[in-house]
């Protein structure tokens, strides 16, 4: 009755109403920012009095925005590569090995995902101050890697657990070396897990703010830190332009994920 759409009666309308309103609540602010980034009013009036590309020009003309975007991109790419490689190796260990405390070890690997980021940020900040890694690219990469790795391990172990190991064994029986079998048989079979590990790792690093606020120096900061610092001063539409570019990247990655999923199914 309550779980049958056609038999909900007028409750159906209430449920649909709440759902549509919630979806609008989630979607409209994102569209709103995108619209305002093309608006001609400096005071972010909606609807804007006119349309302009001024804020994008300001964004692109300011070398600090470009530099921070480039820094973010470099860090995110390095973190993605390291996170996938390390996640792959670790996941093979976690799914194939038979040892005590395996579940506990897996839980330990996932803890950075659940603990408050601010605690890690403050702890790493103190630690890096002592060993001189604050404000360095390595500092950013290490701290983002700690946050991204759990997502990577989770995606790849899930894929590996769903993979029938006897196929890999069969390849070995047919004369492949164990390593060759992993590369040529197992890796292609779990490629969807590797792909989502890469996307999650990239986005974790690219969007990360809290640790980055502590890690940043006047000369080296990521895009979210630049947005954060700008927002603390005023609500300039330049941030709307920057936000719109960030949103655009998310949409592109989501479409990519959807396409790959579709490709895998067919």
């Amino acid at each position, binding site marked *: 009755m309550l779980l049958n759409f056609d038999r909900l009666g007028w409750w159906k309308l209430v449920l649909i109403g709440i759902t549509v309103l919630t979806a609008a609540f*989630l*979607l409209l602010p994102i569209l709103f920012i995108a619209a305002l980034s093309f608006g001609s009013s400096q005071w972010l009036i909606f609807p804007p009095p006119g349309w302009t590309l001024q804020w994008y020009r300001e964004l692109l003309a300011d070398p600090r925005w470009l530099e921070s975007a480039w820094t973010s991109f470099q860090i995110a790419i390095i973190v993605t590569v390291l996170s996938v490689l390390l996640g792959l190796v670790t996941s093979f260990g976690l799914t194939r090995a038979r040892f005590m405390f395996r579940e506990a070890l897996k839980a330990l690997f996932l803890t950075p995902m659940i603990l408050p980021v601010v605690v890690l940020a403050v702890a790493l900040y*103190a630690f890096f101050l002592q060993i001189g890694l604050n404000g360095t690219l390595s500092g950013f990469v290490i701290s983002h890697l700690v946050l991204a790795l759990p997502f990577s391990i989770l995606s790849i172990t899930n894929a590996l657990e769903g993979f029938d190991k006897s196929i890999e064994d069969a390849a070995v029986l047919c004369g492949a070396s164990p390593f060759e079998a992993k590369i040529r048989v197992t890796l292609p079979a779990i490629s969807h897990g590797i792909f989502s590990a890469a996307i999650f790792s990239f986005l974790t690093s690219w969007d990360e703010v809290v640790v980055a606020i*502590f890690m940043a120096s006047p000369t080296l900061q990521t895009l979210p830190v630049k947005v954060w610092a700008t927002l603390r001063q005023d609500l300039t539409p330049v941030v709307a332009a920057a936000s719109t570019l960030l949103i655009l990247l998310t949409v592109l990655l989501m479409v990519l994920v959807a396409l790959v999923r579709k490709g895998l199914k067919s």
Partner: protein
Amino acid sequence: MLSRTDAKAAGSNVPARLTLTDFDLTLPALGLLVLFFVVPVAILLARSVSEPVPGFGNYAELLGSSTYLKIFANTFLVSGLVTFVSLVIGFPVAWALAVMPSRFASVIFAILLLSMWTNLLARTYAWMVLLQRTGVVNKLLVGLGLIDTPLPLVNNLTGVTIGMTYIMLPFVILPLYGVIRKIDPAILQAAALCGANRWQALVRVLLPLAMPGMAAGALMVFVMSLGYFVTPALLGGTANMMLAELIAQFVQSLVNWGMGGAAALVLLVVTLALYAVQLRFFGTDRMGGR
């Protein structure tokens, strides 16, 4: 590692070869985690009982001052409010998603995922603009004649609650959807056959069956909210600071590592305690809604 010891234990004459076992594969990540996660957090916590003088002075100060207690209270208040509002909105949405035709549901899912993946700062910025005195929300309310003068919607409890609920909603809806989806519709048909009307079926069958999912989702949102930093810092005012901001302030502007460490430990303990509750009562195997 294991193979070497095994070979020795067996008293074999074959020299222990340096072969990698599966366990060894986890060592690089373990090393990274210990060096850059476990050790730094441990050092921070150690500093809370050693700086400026050894002892529990920092904790006494933290738990004995009305200023800090107000921040704790506010942190729990905001987290509780956000959790409550998210559940109230999230339950009907999760329920609707579970019964809707899949074409319609997939559009809603796409919006949920887009919102979840969109940059946190971009979303918080959107609310800063929307809720400001001259923002769209105030203009709309005045235009509809609901209020005469613009309401203060940012830099206060209202602003943080709206902004954080916005961020937390998908984290309630998605798990709850999973739980409701797994409920057998036949149970509700049985309730109808036994004479239950819609309300009775909702209150006495559907809600209780969805309760483990509600509780798990609520705990997750509550715990996540407790440690939130960015959104409260941008949408909340100085009068309602949250715990994560306090930690950041101790460390960044006051350079007081002892107090920073102590506040971090309080946050950690509360977080871990709530996760323990979650594991104990709503372990993943019990998430099935029965």
